[in-house]
């Protein structure tokens, strides 16, 4: 569930987000409070019967880790990967 390329014009970094599906309890905080609306709740269930988030707009992720701060179950977090030059991130 790794995804994302910085949406910044300068592209100094790209954001990545990791979701631990089976630890999620489906509260939806990360979906609601993601500033760039990267996530949505999955239609599928996880092994515990909740709907975990999935990435729908990977390019918009800035790696701000607000999802990680909001997640009460420590199931999601974001981070930033530096991009050396334009074109380095494909």
């Amino acid at each position: 569930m790794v995804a994302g390329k910085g949406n910044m014009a300068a592209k100094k970094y790209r954001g990545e987000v990791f979701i631990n599906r089976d630890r999620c309890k489906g509260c939806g905080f990360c979906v609601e409070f993601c500033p760039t609306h990267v996530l949505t709740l999955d239609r599928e269930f996880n092994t515990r019967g909740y709907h975990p988030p999935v990435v729908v707009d990977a390019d918009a992720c800035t790696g701000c880790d607000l999802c990680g701060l909001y997640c009460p179950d420590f199931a999601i977090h974001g981070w930033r990967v530096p991009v050396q030059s334009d074109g380095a991130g494909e």
Partner: protein
Amino acid sequence: MSQGEHRNPVESFLRMDRMPHIWCPGCGIGIVVNCFVRALLKSKIDVDSVSVVSGIGCTGRIAGYFKVDSFHTTHGRPIPFATGLKTARPDMNIVVLSGEGDLIAIGGNHFIHAARRNVDIKVICVNNFTYAMTGGQVGPTAPLHSIATTAPYGSHERPFNLPFLAESSGATYVARWTTYHVRQLTKAMVDVLNKPGFCFVEAIAPCPTIYQRRNRMGDGLEMMRFYREHSRIANGADTRSLDIEMGGEIVVGKFIDRDRPTYLEAMDEELSKRLGNRYVPYPTGVKR
């Protein structure tokens, strides 16, 4: 699907073998844990010098999940335990993380006296307005007219205003944030980790299963939206004006930041004055 070399920063501070934790979906206590871990990382203090003490209740489980020196005390007694710990080991950073039923109701006496003496401990109180673990009795901060197991027609008790209580008892740092204000809550925790004296941070948290279900307030997400829409940041506000009403505005912010001699400093000063060279000063000094 791989996490790569990047681990969730929370995981290195928690006993992950105990996960999943007991907290309900939509509970705010996990957010307070997130903020505290980020504050530990940001303040760059030695994790071996940190000790987390908590009492009984949903929030009281935090001590069991933290992979630092932690202690899960009896009901209402995290502050006496922390006071003893601080007196025996003045070099340690003692953090009390517990709920409002534990700290303010059964432990209320300890709370006001630790604030009066200005014991150098940091108290982070998760306020969810009810005794959640025991089934939802009226707590010390339950707003007027709220429904609880022991108040099926609405509570008629006047609740505590925690920042006012802490300020008037003598705390050196008083702040209140909700779990919606994660960045500010983290900043407040960094502040208190670097500040000597009795510091108090109130973290208002949703309780979807007990408090909100009985009061028809929706799930955790709905409460977080409520915090976003109905909270007002007023740093330095008069703490007397911070009462919380059902469905009313929640005033948040940093209210008090002052300096007073701590318990051990005051003892050193007084006894040095009285006894002169016969008194050997207490080995104070936290690694800050």
